[in-house]
């Protein structure tokens, strides 16, 4: 009799209570399914959560040489970190980078998507061009942009973008880029935006394509101008995409490392230094493992603040029928 067999996959309880109320071990296929999943679950439990725990533990110890020393020093490393000039600059750079990066990527990505959504010829080519940088390694991007934003020298002349400005009669726009401590990490924003804005464009395009034509038509019938249609109908519907983009880009920018390594390094006066670089530097060059662990924990907390609420929100959204 299959009239009660569900036609959709439903969650099935693995904890079947036997008649005497005790948990009954799953058998057969159900058991195999769990066994198939087990290696990955164990791997993530150990290599993600276990390791994070170890790192947290290490940050509370006095492990500052190649020989592990796990004596407990409480919050000492964190106190030291927050009073270290380099780390303070790092945190400031992170905020600067994140804000600029998000603003630029979102505005450029949205503009590109809005322009491409109009059903123009050659849309595929344009899309491919803007998305292309995403296929590159941050190291490749860093090497290229290091030379593009190399200002050149007073004696020998300009190069890179500065040279281009000269050639186009825009010489007044020349700056020292990453060699200028006042600019520092903002130069890295340019490279990062070049790399990632296509991603935002793709997300917005997908979202725009998902908006039913009837909504736009209904608004026009109600007398809305083109601009008003965008402002009151389309853009509000894109809010979830904006949120998703902020989450994705935000967590990338908080842990940005490769790009800084290849493009600028810490820079004059640490003007392009970032926590992830500091962590690498102090741990694997300076052997100060407990300090590195402390930086890692702080980066993790910053990322968690961004990601965990979003994951919980997704979980709840998915659970709804």
């Amino acid at each position, binding site marked *: 009799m299959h009239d009660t067999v569900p036609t959709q996959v439903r969650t099935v309880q693995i904890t079947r209570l036997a008649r005497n109320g005790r948990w009954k071990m799953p058998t057969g296929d159900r058991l195999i399914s769990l066994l198939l999943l087990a290696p990955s679950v164990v791997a993530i439990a150990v290599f993600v959560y276990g390791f994070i725990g170890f790192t947290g533990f290490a940050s509370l110890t006095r492990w500052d040489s190649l020989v592990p020393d796990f004596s407990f020093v409480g919050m000492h490393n964190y106190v030291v970190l927050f009073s270290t000039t380099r780390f303070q600059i790092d945190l400031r750079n992170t905020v600067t980078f994140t804000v600029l990066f998000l603003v630029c990527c979102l505005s450029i990505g949205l503009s590109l998507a809005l322009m491409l959504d109009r059903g123009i010829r050659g849309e595929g080519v344009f899309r491919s061009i803007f998305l292309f940088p995403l296929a590159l390694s941050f190291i490749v991007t860093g090497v290229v942009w290091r030379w593009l934003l190399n200002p050149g020298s007073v004696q020998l002349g300009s190069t890179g973008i500065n040279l281009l400005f000269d050639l186009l009669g825009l010489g007044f726009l020349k700056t020292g880029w990453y060699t200028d401590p006042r600019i520092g990490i903002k130069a890295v924003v340019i490279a990062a935006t070049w790399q990632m804005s296509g991603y935002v464009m793709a997300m917005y395009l997908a979202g725009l394509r998902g908006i039913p034509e009837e909504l736009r038509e209904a608004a026009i019938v109600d007398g809305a101008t083109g601009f008003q249609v965008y402002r009151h109908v389309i853009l509000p519907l894109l809010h979830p995409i904006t949120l998703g983009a902020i989450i*994705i880009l935000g967590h990338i920018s908080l842990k940005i490392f490769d790009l800084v390594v290849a493009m600028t390094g810490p820079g004059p006066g640490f003007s392009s230094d970032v926590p992830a670089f500091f962590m690498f530097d102090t741990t694997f060059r300076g052997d100060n493992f407990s300090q590195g662990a402390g930086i890692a924990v702080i980066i993790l907390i910053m990322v968690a603040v961004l990601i965990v609420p979003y994951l919980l929100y997704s979980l709840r959204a998915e659970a709804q029928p």
Partner: protein
Amino acid sequence: MPRVATYTALTVLAAIYLLPIYVLIITGLKSFEEVNLYRMWDLPAAFSLETFARAWLGSESQGFRGLSNNFWNSVRLTVPATLLSALLGSINGYVLSKWKFRGADGLFMLLLFGMFIPYQSILIPLVQALRSIGLYGSIAGLIFAHVVYGIPITTLIFRNYYATVPGELVEAAKIDGAGIFGIYKSVMLPVSMPAFAVVMIWQFTSIWNDFLFGVIITPRPAVQPITVALNNLAGSYIVEWNVQMAGALLAALPTMLVYILLGRYFMRGLLAGSLKG
């Protein structure tokens, strides 16, 4: 905004976006005599491959290694790691979508968090662990790390993909007497090709382009993947800037080709990972 204005704006923007690629390519194609930092934007007078040759083979006289060895290291790393993590993702996605249990979704969220963690938070114990199982400093160790930390994203893509396979097909197969493996073979696998394409292209790109694991796990230059070698090349004072650019292009070639030829699947991987929730 009128169409002409849109086209113009898009063309100008496209040109701006292509500037770095333009410089990358023409610099690599210039002969040594032509290369001049202060004439960066000039087209080459004649095409020459000597810069690429120098970047690929290195230079005894100047004392730097080329990228050829590291290119093959990257291949040896990326191909197995991509295949393994795709397989793992497929199995996990299958179980989590068609053999659900109470708490499966919560477990999945815990798995997913692993996709977002900053790897700095696991580097120190990772090195210790790899050392203790003898995989530190080897490509095998790199493969291991990439497969483990690739579990979340590959599982995500497959799980969401398999969730679109109608439950009726699974039930029908069960009625026909198929067990867990039978269902996988007869229902899941036949429709899995697009998902495998997306996952493999995404993983290939991520793993080939990775730097952090490469620089931490394989400190010896002979074993390093090409991204690490490129960074060393670019950071060296004795290597001319045009050789660095040529090296960058060589390092970028595989993922560039994958993108140009299989961009459609690349896009799908992008959007799958963006958790439209």
